[in-house]
C-alpha cells in the first residue's frame, strides 16, 4: 500500500447543530505513528470516530486506504482498520486469550487462538492468558484489549487513549509496541494526554483546540510555545534531555 491508510478531508462533525470538529484535514501513512493531542473536549475521540465512520460527517470526507469510509462494508472496514475505544468496560469475565482472539474473529478457531497468544506475549500478558479479564487490574485489562487490537492485524491501528491508567513504564512499552507495528508497515493513530510521552513516541502530532486543527507536524514543531498556550493553556516548551524530550511548563497566567 502506497497511499495514506487514513485521510480526513475538511471533515466537520456537528452535535445538536454545534460543530465539535471543523475543517479537519490530515492523513496517516503506513509506517508512521500519528498522535492526536488536545485538552479535554477538544474533539480527539470525535476525530477518531469520524475517521472510522462511527460519527456522521456534516461535511468533508473520511477515507480508509483511499476509499470513502461510508461506502465500505463491515468486513472491508474491519480489514482496513482495527479500533481500541476509550471505553474499557468488558461485559463478561472471559479469559484473556478469548478476549484477544476476538481480534481474529474471521480466522479458524485454532489460528485465532495462536494469534491471540502471540499478541498477549507482545503486550507482556502471556502468563495471564487464562485469567478472567474482570479478575485483573484495569491496567492489565487495558493491555489485553490492546492485544485484541494487535490481533486484528489490520494495516491501520487506531487506539483511543491506549496509555490511560497505565504505569509509567507500561505507557512507554505500549507506545513501543505500537511503534513496532508501525515499523512493520502499519499506520498507527493514537490519542494521548501525556505530551512528553507523545513527543517521544509519535512521528507526528496533530493538536486540536476546540474542534479545530491548530498544529500538525513533528513533535518539536507541533508543540511550540504558541500552540501550548493556545491548545493547553500552558506556558513552557519541550526540553531535550539524554532520555528524550521532556515537557517543562506551568499553567498560563495572563499578565
Amino acid at each position, binding site marked *: 500500500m502506497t497511499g495514506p491508510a487514513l485521510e480526513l478531508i475538511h471533515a466537520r462533525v456537528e452535535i445538536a447543530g454545534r460543530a465539535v470538529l471543523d475543517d479537519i484535514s490530515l492523513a496517516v501513512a503506513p509506517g508512521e505513528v500519528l498522535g492526536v493531542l488536545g485538552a479535554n473536549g477538544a474533539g480527539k475521540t470525535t476525530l477518531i470516530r469520524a475517521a472510522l465512520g*462511527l460519527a456522521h460527517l456534516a461535511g468533508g470526507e473520511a477515507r480508509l486506504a483511499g476509499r470513502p469510509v461510508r461506502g465500505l462494508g463491515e468486513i472491508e472496514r474491519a480489514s482496513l*482498520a482495527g479500533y*481500541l475505544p476509550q471505553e474499557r468496560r468488558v*461485559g*463478561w469475565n472471559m479469559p484473556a486469550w478469548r478476549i484477544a482472539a*476476538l481480534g481474529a474473529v474471521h480466522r479458524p478457531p485454532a489460528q485465532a487462538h495462536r494469534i491471540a497468544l502471540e499478541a498477549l506475549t507482545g503486550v507482556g500478558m502471556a502468563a495471564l492468558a487464562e485469567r478472567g479479564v474482570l479478575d485483573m487490574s484495569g491496567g492489565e485489562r487495558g493491555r489485553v484489549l490492546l492485544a485484541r487490537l494487535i490481533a486484528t492485524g489490520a494495516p491501520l491501528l487506531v487506539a483511543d487513549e491506549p496509555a490511560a491508567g497505565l504505569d509509567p513504564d507500561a505507557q512507554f512499552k505500549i507506545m513501543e509496541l505500537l511503534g513496532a507495528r508501525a515499523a512493520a508497515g502499519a499506520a498507527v493513530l493514537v490519542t494521548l494526554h501525556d505530551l512528553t510521552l507523545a513527543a517521544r513516541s509519535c512521528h507526528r502530532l496533530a493538536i486540536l483546540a476546540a474542534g479545530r486543527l491548530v498544529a500538525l507536524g513533528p513533535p518539536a514543531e507541533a508543540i511550540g510555545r504558541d500552540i501550548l498556550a493556545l491548545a493547553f493553556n500552558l506556558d513552557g516548551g519541550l526540553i531535550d534531555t539524554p532520555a528524550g524530550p521532556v515537557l517543562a511548563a506551568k499553567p498560563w497566567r495572563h499578565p
Partner: protein
Amino acid sequence: MRAPVLTLVLFVALALAMGLGETSLSAHQYVQAFADPASAPAEILWTIRAPRAVAAAVVGAALGLAGAVMQGLLRNPLADPGVLGVSAMAALGAAATIALGLTLPGAVELAALAGALMAGALVVFLAIRLREPDALILFGVALSALGGALTALIFNLSPSLVTTSEVLHWLMGSVANRDWGDIAAGLAPMALGAGLTVYAARGLRMLTLGEETAALSGLPMARLRAAAVAGAALLTGAAVAMAGVIGFVGLAAPHLVRGGVSDDPARTLAPSALAGAILLVLADLAARMIPTSEELKLGVVTALFGAPLFALVAWRASRSWRT
C-alpha cells in the same frame, strides 16, 4: 456445568417425572406400560406423564435459551425474556383472546405467539437503532408495564368472574394436561428461534467488548442483533403459548451454567437451554407432588423456589458483575 453432564441430569429428571405421580405404579405395571400400549399403566405413562414432562422440558429449554440470549445481548445479568416486554405482550395477547370469548382451538396459543412476535418486531426495530443496551432495557420495561396494565384493564372491564379466573389461571403458567399435539405445535417456532440464536452467537460474544468495538469488528452486528432479538421473541412466545407465563427460569438458567463455560456468552447458550429444561421439569414435578387441595401452578412454583435460589446465585455470582 457442561453440556454432557447437563444432558445426563435432564434425562434423570425426566425419568423421575415419569416415574413419580399421583398413582404409584408397581415394577410389574412399568413393564406392562412398555409392553402393552393399550394398558392402563401405558395410558398414565405415555399420554399423561410423558407429554407433561416433555412440555416442561421444552418450555424450560426455550426460556433458558431466550434468557441467555437476552443477557448476552444486553450485557446485563439481570436481563431475561420478561425484561424486553415480550412475555408481557404474549400474556396480553392470550388474555385478550380469552376475554373476547374466542373459543376456536389454538386461538389463545396463536394470540400469545402473535403478541410475542409483535413485541419482538418492535424490539428488533429499536435494537437496530438503539445501540446502547440500557436504552433497550428501559424500553423493555416500558413495554412490559404497558402489557401488564392492558392485562389489568381486561380484568377491570371483564364482565364475568369466570373469564377473570380463566385469564388468571393462564397467567400463572402450567403444563398440566398438555398432549403431544400441543408440543408439536410449539416446536416449529421454537426450532426457528433456536436456529436464529445459534446464528447470533458470535455477535453476542463480540458484544462483550461493547458496541463500538463490535461495530468495527467486521461482524454484521445489525443483522446479528436483530436475529438475537427475533430468536428470543420466538422462543418466549412459543413458550408462553404452550405453558402460560413462567418467570425466573430465563433469569436463573444462564447463571447456573455460566461459570462452566468461562463466562463466554456464545458458549452459554446450549448449557443454559439444558439447565432451563432441568429446572422446569423438576419444578413441575414439585408442583405435582406437593400435596395441596388445589394443584400448584407451575409459574407459582418457579417463583416460590426460584426467587430465593436466584438471590443465592446472584450473591455468589456478583463478583463477576464488576465493571
